[in-house]
């Protein structure tokens, strides 16, 4: 395993991440209140996914972790997406 120094995130970075997350929350509330019909659910999920990615990358320090951990996390989210897709295929075509 590669010998790496633990990264220390600055307070400025943490504040910046929080502000971005709050802006995205505001956007999702405003966008959903506009009643975009069929796109509402998709939009809400896309915005939530962006927020989750930001939390994983910066607050949970994945950006500064070794690549094995990043591949594991990516793989698990991919697996989860596949499970959801298969559930819906099964549900609609049975």
């Amino acid at each position: 395993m590669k010998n790496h120094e633990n990264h220390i995130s600055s307070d400025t970075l943490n504040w910046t991440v929080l502000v971005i997350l709050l802006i995205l929350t505001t956007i999702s509330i405003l966008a959903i209140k506009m009643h975009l019909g069929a796109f509402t659910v998709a939009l809400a999920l896309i915005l939530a996914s962006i927020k989750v990615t930001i939390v994983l990358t910066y607050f949970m320090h994945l950006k500064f972790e070794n690549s094995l951990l990043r591949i594991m996390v990516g793989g698990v989210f991919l697996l989860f997406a596949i499970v959801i897709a298969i559930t819906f295929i099964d549900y609609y075509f049975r």
Partner: protein
Amino acid sequence: MSSTEHSEHIDSDTGKMGMWLFLFTELFLFGGLFIVYAVMRSKYAADFHHAALELNAFVGATNTVVLLVSSMTVAMSLTAIQQNRSGKAIGLILITLILAGVFMVNKYFEWGHKIGLHLYPGSDVMKTMPHGEIMFFGLYFMMTGLHAIHVIIGGILLTIVIRKIQSGKISSSHYLLQENAALYWHLVDLIWIFLFPLLYLIT
């Protein structure tokens, strides 16, 4: 001594990886509920629409902001301990605990209001409702309840972290427990990021 230092470094890395593996199981615990929600929503779209109007988006939004800020304070406490500033680290975790308390008080009033309206699984009012609405409220109580249990566990973990910082067991050279507790707290935040739009915003 170099071999000892080396093994300690590996321990810290594997300790963190173990925490991530545990977080994956948590993801699938909630993931199962999300799948049930998605399937039921597509099956009972009208009922879900009607039932979701009962939820107060303002309370949900307030709790979202509370959890996002608490996620930042816990990330900052890790920065503080890495910089050997244990006082600041304890202060930031205390703020996180206060925010967790605010979240739970909000939840208490929210659930109290629903239960006051007899909107809880198995109530006399609920029995007269369409099947889809019963599903929605069942999922609402299950998902937010399971999430609230995680908030309480996270709070207990962070309290233990404070004690260990005070006793010097967590320091700028040994902070794996704090790192893992912080990861757990961020997971609580991650789950809420999905719960909030799915339950409160989309109607």
